[in-house]
């Protein structure tokens, strides 16, 4: 197995507010890592630091064995790094991100949305961009909606277009930031299935979600984040079934207050 992402002593503050306090994380190629935690625990910020939508206050991030930025100093454990915007732009092009609110471009069709990255960023020839758009829209099951505008698609369909848009860049890593939190409950399943099929194909993914059942069944590793530190991490069975920390247990209990008997869904 090769190391695709290595995060070392990552800190992020917004003004006086310390959101991430020393995160260390290694993700192997092909792994699906699910990040759990209550709101305000720093899950989204952690995800957004990986593709430098947020610039870390300190700490080192290496992608595919290549550290990003130039290290300036390493004083008392704090790693200060200088970044060049042009390098970060290159990183973002190789890391796909899917947002809670889809953020599709409303003035483009599904096809146009998926073509946009390859066309504008990768500057591929038109024919190849079209081929990619077709491939990835078919992959998320929307071959018949290619020419629809986002406004005419359901939330689940919009999110699948957003996934196709990220995949069309053929990224080495995918980030999902609460991709199903804004969806009506009956549309959550189709999006989760799409993400699951990516996991099965060996896509490396970091997923922030509140869907614990999904986390349990697709994750190769689960992290529990609390107050900006990783409180617990390990295989789904260790973190979700036999958690060691009281905070993790409280969190899981909060998510499973009411349950249907299994018979109801069969």
């Amino acid at each position, binding site marked *: 197995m090769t190391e695709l992402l290595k995060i070392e002593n990552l800190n992020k503050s917004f003004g006086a507010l310390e959101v991430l306090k020393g995160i260390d994380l290694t993700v192997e190629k092909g792994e699906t890592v699910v990040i759990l935690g209550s709101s305000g625990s720093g899950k989204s910020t952690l995800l957004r630091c990986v*593709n430098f*939508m947020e610039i870390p206050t300190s700490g080192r991030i290496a992608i595919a064995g290549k550290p990003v930025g130039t290290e300036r100093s390493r004083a008392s454990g704090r790693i200060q790094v200088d970044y060049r915007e042009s390098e970060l*732009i*290159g990183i*973002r*092009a*190789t890391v*796909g*991100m899917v*947002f809670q*609110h889809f*953020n*599709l*471009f*409303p*003035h483009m069709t599904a096809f146009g949305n998926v073509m*946009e*990255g390859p066309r*504008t*960023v990768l500057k591929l020839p038109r024919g190849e961009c079209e081929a990619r758009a077709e491939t990835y829209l078919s992959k998320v099951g929307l071959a018949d909606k290619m020419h629809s505008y986002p*406004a005419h698609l359901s939330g689940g369909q919009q999110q699948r277009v*957003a996934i196709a*848009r*990220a995949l069309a*860049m053929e990224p080495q890593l995918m980030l999902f930031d609460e991709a199903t939190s804004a969806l009506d409950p009956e549309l959550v399943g189709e999006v989760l299935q799409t993400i699951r099929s990516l996991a099965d194909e060996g896509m490396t993914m970091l997923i922030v979600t509140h869907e614990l059942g999904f986390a349990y069944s697709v994750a190769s590793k689960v992290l529990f984040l609390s107050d900006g530190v990783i409180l617990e991490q390990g295989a789904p069975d260790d973190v979700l079934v036999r958690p060691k920390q009281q905070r993790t247990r409280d969190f899981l209990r909060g998510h499973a207050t009411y349950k249907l008997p299994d018979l109801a869904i069969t």
Partner: protein
Amino acid sequence: MEHIWDFESVFTNWRLLLIGLGNTVLLAVVCLGIGLFLGLFIGAARYSKNRLLNVPASVFVEVFRNTPALVQIMWFFFAFPIISPFRIDSFTAATLGLSLNTAAFCSEIYRAGIQSIHRGQWEAAKALGMRYGEQMRRVILPQAMRRMIPAFMNRAIELTKMTSLASVIAFGELVHQAKTISTIEFNPIETYTVVGLIFFIMIWPIAIAVRGLERRLSRHE
């Protein structure tokens, strides 16, 4: 006292009116073009983080938005030639005044339009790996432009009416031509009635189109 209406004397001077109409349209179109173009850069400069850009741009916008267009035109015609090496005719002075005035207002329309686009659009474009200019050109402006169109059309209406101010520096647009006709024919009532109607016929359809557009845009969002 009974006034005997004499429109005949206006229409015998149709050539003068036609020239005036041509000049009015020319001035309006040129100033709108320059205003739209300059406004984009002034708007961008005003909201740039660089103080060398944003301070002068803000001063420009505030000066032109808070002084009368008539004063601006007269200043460019009477004062500007004294402090500059150029000779300035009435068309140039009117163009300078009105296009800079329009640029100041347009820069604010651009700003409001761009700020109305949701943050998520910037984020999605950035996450794909787009540079700032690409985000703007491919994602933000195409959406913002649609929302700006009604405001720009209103600007065009205001500008068309403001061209009449150029009559004070003897630029041969509609109102100046009307002044000439009414002096020759002693028929100010009829001449200005006709000129008013010409403006109305030119501008009213645009105003109706703006209202239609605004209704259509609000339906889509």
